[in-house]
């Protein structure tokens, strides 16, 4: 990499980290635009945390280059540290100290004087709904509270780039939604967020661009739309009035759309997976055509919905194995899956 490309918060080229025999990160190229949420999606052990640690100057890369706002993460580590914040996979706060003490401690380390550090701590605790728990030790916090204090600690000084390493792992759905709201609020103020996650819907909800990473390599990269389009335009779900008409309806869908039709367990329901190659039509256009044909054939459709392909399907299509299989493969260090290769 010669020069810093304007508008990029993170640029990596051929980033490598090995632990003994394992190539945890095996030539990762990333280009993260400023002001967005960039999702790094992958199963456990894919190399997400290792990548984040290298970008946050906590681990030295064994190969390749990484720049954060144009600063090399090894040679200009201090400049990088001045502009980023890290919320690790495990609470990056001191468990023995109280919420207030943690924030005041970090505020002082960031250069605030005693008074300013206390004020900022109180304001953050208030904004994060933690005022009541301010005087309690972190080890007595619930999972959701820990995540909040952790993120609060990361924005004591508004960072230009925030690393969120699996911010919702182990949280209940409600706390997860609250963390998502916080992430949205942070990005709305102009901070770039690099979010790693193993939850496909989390990347779907928050990120505008996504890199799918598996076994230390980026296997796909693009906007959510691009990634989804790569596995097809989506699917049409239909519910018929009369179960007896289902075989006929399936035939009509096959002929009009050239789609794979799946009969659901519900005897009146069926799903047609739309292919991209079928036509230039959008998913909605294809669905409209299908509905017209069905009506002409005298088939009554009670209800229909258009489904976008889920990132689950994307992952399956890209790797040839689902996320579970990938974890198992990583765990047993099995040789490369034929389908994936």
């Amino acid at each position, binding site marked *: 990499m010669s020069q810093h490309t304007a508008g990029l918060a993170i640029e990596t080229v051929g980033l490598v980290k090995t632990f003994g025999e394992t190539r945890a990160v095996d030539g990762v190229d990333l280009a993260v635009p400023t002001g967005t949420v960039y999702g790094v999606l992958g199963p456990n052990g894919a190399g997400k945390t290792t990548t984040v640690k290298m970008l946050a100057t906590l681990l030295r890369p064994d190969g390749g280059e990484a720049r954060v706002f144009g600063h090399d993460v090894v040679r200009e580590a201090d400049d990088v540290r001045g502009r980023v914040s890290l919320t690790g996979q495990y609470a990056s706060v001191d468990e*023995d100290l109280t919420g207030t003490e943690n924030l005041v*401690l970090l505020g002082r380390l960031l*250069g605030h004087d005693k008074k300013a550090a206390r004020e900022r701590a109180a304001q*953050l605790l208030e*904004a994060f*709904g933690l005022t009541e728990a301010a005087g309690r*030790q972190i080890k007595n916090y619930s999972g959701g509270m820990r995540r909040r204090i952790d993120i609060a600690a990361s924005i004591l000084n508004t960072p230009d780039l925030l690393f969120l390493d699996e911010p919702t792992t182990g949280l209940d759905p409600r706390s997860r939604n609250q963390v998502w709201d916080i992430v949205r609020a942070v990005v709305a103020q102009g901070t770039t967020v690099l979010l790693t996650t193993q939850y496909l819907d989390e990347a779907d909800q928050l990120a505008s661009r996504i890199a799918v990473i598996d076994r230390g390599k980026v296997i796909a990269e693009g906007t959510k739309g691009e990634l989804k389009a790569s596995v097809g335009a989506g699917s049409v779900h239909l519910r018929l009035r009369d179960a007896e008409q289902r075989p006929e309806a399936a035939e009509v869908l096959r002929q009009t759309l050239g789609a794979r039709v799946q009969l659901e367990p519900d005897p009146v329901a069926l799903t047609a997976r739309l292919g991209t190659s079928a036509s230039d039509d959008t998913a909605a256009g294809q669905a409209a055509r299908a509905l017209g044909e069905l009506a002409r054939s005298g088939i009554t459709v009670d209800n229909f919905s258009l489904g976008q392909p889920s990132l689950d399907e994307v992952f399956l299509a890209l790797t040839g194995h689902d996320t579970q299989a990938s974890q198992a493969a990583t765990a047993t260090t099995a040789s490369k899956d034929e389908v994936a290769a």
Partner: protein
Amino acid sequence: MSTATTTETRELAPVSAESLAALLVAKERPPRPSAWSASLTFGWRAVLKIKHVPEQLFDVTAFPIMMVLMYTYLFGGALAGSPKEYIQFLLPGILVMSVVMITMYTGVSVNTDIEKGVFDRFRSLPIWRPSTMVGYLLGDALRYAIASVVMLTVGIVLGYRPDGGPVGVIAGIALLIVFSFAFSWIWTMFGLMLRTEKSVMGVSMMVIFPLTFLSNVFVDPRTMPGWLQAFVNNSPVTHLASAVRGLMAGDWPADEIAWTLGWAALFLLVFGPITMRLYNRK
């Protein structure tokens, strides 16, 4: 799930998006803290930990009291005629021995701490790199001071009368703390190098027992075999014990003080950089 968790979840107030946004608008950053200020802040963290877990003061209170009582009455009669005579000689030595022994807990606390997520945050802050470690040692210096005061008090109760008066005693303790601060970098190194708390403890014992016992803390080295005298007379603990003994007795043992400070500088210059290298590579 436990009742406590459910209560907490229910208590949890919603995140206020507006006040959060207002906080995030403030983009100005204060200048970075100085090396000294960052170190002091980490020292404050160590003090807060003592406040929350006061049991950890056990090793600087009960342990030193036990050391004074045990050795005064165990060896007093045999070595000096009576415990009261012996304590005049023993107290500065046992003070040195106990504090130098306590330093090894630094390694254990560094080792248990480094595995926690908070260390990743500290290491990603734009601050003077050694300040985290210096902070530990500043907190520990406070512990050493507490241990020293406790032991002196017990000693005085048992009949120890320092001829150097308050000035001599304070000078002796100050020298002891300076040495311990420098010496502790061995433990920060082991704390970062070894994988488990147990191995840190094991290695520390192997270093600390010979180093403190093979010294002039208990007896005059003149009765020892020649090869042992060679070791004992050049041991940093012997120099430190002699210097502290001299200062508390109202002398000015310049040679011994110089040797002690020399050793302290050596420990700091060798093990400080190794510690920081390990810290940066962790």
